[in-house]
C-alpha cells in the first residue's frame, strides 16, 4: 500500500502543521499526568470483565492501530481474524458499535441461511469457507461453542426460463466443491410429494453443507472470541472524520492535494464526543455503511471520491405461520421458489417462516422496522398456496423485519481497500447473504492488512475498484 506514495522534501515547518480540531476539552498536562497515575495505582487502567464475563478495557482508546466501524457479524469477524493472526498485544484493535444490544442490526434479524448456490465463484468459495468455519467452530471458540446448524439443504426451483441458468450454476458450484444435484420435474415430485410442480421445470437440491443456523450465536461467539483475544469494543457512534492535507503524498488518479484521514470522532451514549486516532480504518457498518462512507467524503468529494458507496438500507420482512392439517414433513429443505419467495421449517410442529424481496417499485420505507402484513397477504400467500397446496389456509401469525445491507450497484459485497484512502478498507454491501460469508470476509480483510494481499480466496474482483472501472459483478442467486 505504500507504493502509492513518494516522499518529497518539504520545508520542516510544514510537518508540524496540523489542522485537526480536537473535540475534547483541553486537559492540563500536569493534571492529566496525575489522573493517569492515580488510575494506575487504583488499577483502573487494567482490563476488567463486564456483566457477561467479557474482557473490557476501562480506558477510552485514543490511539489505536485499527478501528473497525460496526460490530455486527462482519466487523466482529474481522476483529477476530486480525487478532487471531497476530498476538495479544501486537495490534490495538477497537470496534465501534453504536448499539451493543444489536436490536436493529441485520445480523440478529436475519434468517441465517447457509448455502453455496450462487453464481459467482467468489461467493461460492466464501460460503464454502463459511460452512467449514461453522463446522470447526469448536476449535475456534472452545467446546461450548454451538451455532445450531440444521443441515437440511436448500432447494432452488426454476421455471422454464431460468432452468438453463440453474443447471449452469450447479455445474460451477460442483466444480468448486459444493454438492448439489439437479432434479427434474418427476424427481421433484417423487422426493417432495407436498409440492406442486406444475410450473417448475427443474430444481437444484443442495446435498451437503447447506441449511440454516443461529446468527445470534455466531455473532456472540465472534464477539466474545475477538474480545478474549484483546479487541476493545467501544459503545458509541462514529459521527465525523477529520482530514489532514498531505502535500507530500502523490497518488495516481488524485488531482490536487491528497487529503487523508486518520482521526475520527465518536459520540458516546452520554453525548460526549471523543477522538480516536487510527492507522487503518475498516468500514463494516452494515446497512448504514453508505452514510458512514459519506462522513469520510466517499461520494461527496471530487475525482475518485465522487463515487459513492452504493449501500443502502432495504427493509425485508420475514413472516412466520402455522400450518394446520398436513404440513410438509421433515423432508422440507429451505425452498426458494422461482419467484424469489423462500420458506423453511421453523421447529417441528408445523411452524414455518417465509419471506420475499419486494419489487423495486414497492420498496417499503426504511424509517422503522414495522411489519406490513398486507405484503404477506397480497404477494407471498398466493405464491405459497400455489406451491404447497397444504398452505392454502395459512395466515401470518407473527413477523419481523430487518434491513438488508443492500448494494444497489450489483447486489454483492464490496470487500477491499478504498482506492483513494490508503488506510481505509471496506467490507459491506452483502445484500442478504452476509452472515454465511462473515468468516471468509474477516479472514480476507485480515490477509489484506497483515499479509498485504489475499492469501486464500482471491476477492480482487469484489473490491471497490469495480465501481470505478464500472464492471458490476452481478449475482443471480439473490433472494
Amino acid at each position, binding site marked *: 500500500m505504500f507504493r502509492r506514495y513518494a516522499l518529497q522534501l518539504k520545508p520542516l515547518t510544514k510537518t508540524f502543521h496540523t489542522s485537526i480540531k480536537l473535540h475534547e476539552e483541553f486537559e492540563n498536562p500536569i493534571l492529566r499526568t496525575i489522573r493517569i497515575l492515580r488510575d494506575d495505582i487504583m488499577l483502573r487502567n487494567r482490563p476488567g470483565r463486564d456483566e457477561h464475563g467479557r474482557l473490557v478495557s476501562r480506558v477510552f482508546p485514543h490511539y489505536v492501530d485499527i478501528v473497525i466501524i460496526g460490530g455486527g457479524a462482519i466487523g466482529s469477524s474481522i476483529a477476530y481474524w486480525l487478532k487471531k493472526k*497476530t498476538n495479544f498485544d501486537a495490534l490495538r484493535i477497537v470496534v465501534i458499535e453504536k448499539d451493543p444490544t444489536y436490536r436493529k442490526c441485520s445480523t440478529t434479524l436475519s434468517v441465517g441461511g447457509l448455502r453455496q448456490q450462487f453464481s459467482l*465463484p467468489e461467493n461460492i468459495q466464501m460460503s464454502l469457507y463459511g460452512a467449514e468455519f461453522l463446522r470447526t467452530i469448536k476449535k475456534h471458540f472452545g467446546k461450548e461453542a454451538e451455532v445450531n446448524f440444521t443441515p437440511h439443504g436448500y432447494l432452488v426451483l426454476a421455471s422454464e426460463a431460468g432452468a438453463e441458468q440453474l443447471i449452469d450454476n450447479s455445474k460451477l458450484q460442483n466444480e468448486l466443491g459444493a454438492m448439489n444435484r439437479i432434479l427434474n420435474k418427476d424427481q421433484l415430485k417423487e422426493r417432495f410429494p407436498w409440492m406442486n410442480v406444475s410450473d417448475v421445470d427443474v430444481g437444484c437440491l443442495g446435498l451437503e453443507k447447506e441449511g440454516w443456523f443461529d446468527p445470534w450465536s455466531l455473532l456472540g461467539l465472534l464477539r466474545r472470541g475477538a474480545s478474549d483475544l484483546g479487541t476493545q469494543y467501544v459503545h458509541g457512534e462514529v459521527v465525523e472524520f477529520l482530514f489532514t492535507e498531505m502535500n507530500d503524498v502523490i497518488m495516481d488518479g488524485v488531482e490536487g492535494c491528497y487529503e487523508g484521514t486518520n482521526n475520527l470522532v465518536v459520540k458516546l451514549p452520554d453525548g460526549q464526543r471523543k477522538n480516536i486516532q487510527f492507522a487503518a480504518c475498516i468500514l463494516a457498518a452494515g446497512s448504514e455503511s453508505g452514510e458512514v462512507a459519506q462522513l469520510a467524503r466517499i461520494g461527496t468529494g471530487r475525482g475518485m471520491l465522487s463515487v459513492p458507496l452504493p449501500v443502502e438500507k432495504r427493509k425485508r420482512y420475514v413472516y412466520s405461520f402455522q400450518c394446520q392439517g398436513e404440513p410438509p414433513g421433515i423432508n422440507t429443505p429451505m425452498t426458494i421458489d422461482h419467484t424469489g419467495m423462500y420458506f423453511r421449517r421453523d421447529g417441528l410442529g408445523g411452524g414455518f417462516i417465509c419471506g420475499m424481496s419486494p419489487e423495486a417499485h414497492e420498496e417499503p420505507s426504511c424509517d422503522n422496522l414495522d411489519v406490513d402484513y398486507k405484503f404477506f397477504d397480497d404477494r407471498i400467500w398466493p405464491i405459497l398456496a400455489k406451491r404447497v397446496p397444504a398452505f392454502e389456509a395459512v395466515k401470518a401469525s407473527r413477523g419481523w423485519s430487518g434491513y438488508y445491507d443492500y448494494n444497489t450497484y450489483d447486489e454483492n459485497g464490496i470487500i477491499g481497500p478504498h482506492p483513494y484512502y490508503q488506510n481505509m478498507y471496506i467490507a459491506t454491501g452483502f445484500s442478504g447473504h452476509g452472515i454465511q460469508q462473515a468468516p471468509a470476509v474477516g479472514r480476507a480483510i485480515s490477509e489484506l492488512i497483515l499479509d498485504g494481499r489475499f492469501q486464500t480466496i482471491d476477492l480482487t474482483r469484489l473490491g471497490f475498484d469495480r465501481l470505478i*472501472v464500472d464492471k458490476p459483478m452481478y449475482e443471480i442467486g439473490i433472494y
Partner: protein
Amino acid sequence: MFKLRLPQICTKFTAQQCRFCTIKEPKELIAKDPKEKDVVEVQEKYDPKKVTKEDMQWRTPWHQKEGQYYSLLRTFYTEDNKRSLLQSLQTPIDLSPSSIKNWWAKHKEQVEILSQSYLPERNQVLGNELAAAHFIVYRGGAVKFFNQDKWIKADENEEYDLPRFYEEGKILEAIDCADMNIVYEGLENLRNLKKVQWLSFNGCERIDDWCIDKISNMFSHSLVYLDLRNCPCITDRGIGALYKLRKLKILYLDDFLRSTTYEMTCLLLEEANPHLEIRSDPVVFET
C-alpha cells in the same frame, strides 16, 4: 462537479475502462436500480464471469512504472512479509502443564486429521471400493463385500487380507466403523461407493451433525441399515437430515426419548419414510 479531467499520470486507461474518463452525467454513474440493470444486461450481454482481476487494476502500481528502482532491488525483496514467523516470535513461550497438554492434544488431532484425509492416489490404485475397505480395516473397522460371507477385520497383529491392487467385482456391502476414531475429513474416503447397505458408527464419538449431513448424502442411494448408537455429538438436527436416506429401513439410536424434539424428529422421519423403523436400546433405569 463531476466533470474532471483525466489526471495526467493515468495514461494507461482508456475511455471504457474508467468511469472518470468518460464525461457522463452523474445520474448514469450513480448506481442503477435493479430494474435498469436488466436492461443493461440484455443490451450488452455483459457477463461478470469474463471480468478478470486485471480489469480491476486501473492504475499502474507505483513500482511497475518507468524509471522506478524497485525492479533493481527486486532480488532483495520478498513479496511475503513473514507474518506467521513474526507472530510466533512475538508470542511468549508458555511452558505451563496445561498449555503443553493443550498443545499436545491439538497436535494429535491435526495428525489424526491428516492421516485420515483423502488420498487420490490410493483410490486410483485400488478403486473406490477397495480403497474404502483398506481405509476402514487399517483403522480397526470391519467390512464385508457382496458374495462373501465373512467380515474382513484386522487380527491382533494388525494384519488383514485385502487385495493390494484393483480387482473387479469387489463391491462393499457393509461397513462397520464401531468404536473407530473416525473424523469428518476421513468420511471423504467413503464417497462414491456403489451399494453399501449396512453401516454402523456405533461408539464413534467424533461423529456429529456435520458428519451426518455428509453420510446422509453419500449413501442416500443405497443405505438400508444405519447404527448411530453411542454417538454423543449427534443432535435432533442431525437426525432430521437423515430424511435424505430414502431406502433406509432400520435406524438404531441410543434413546429417542431423550428430549421432545428428538422424539418428534424421529416420528417425523418415520412419517416421511413409511418403511423406516427406528429402534433403540432399552433404557436401563438405575435402581
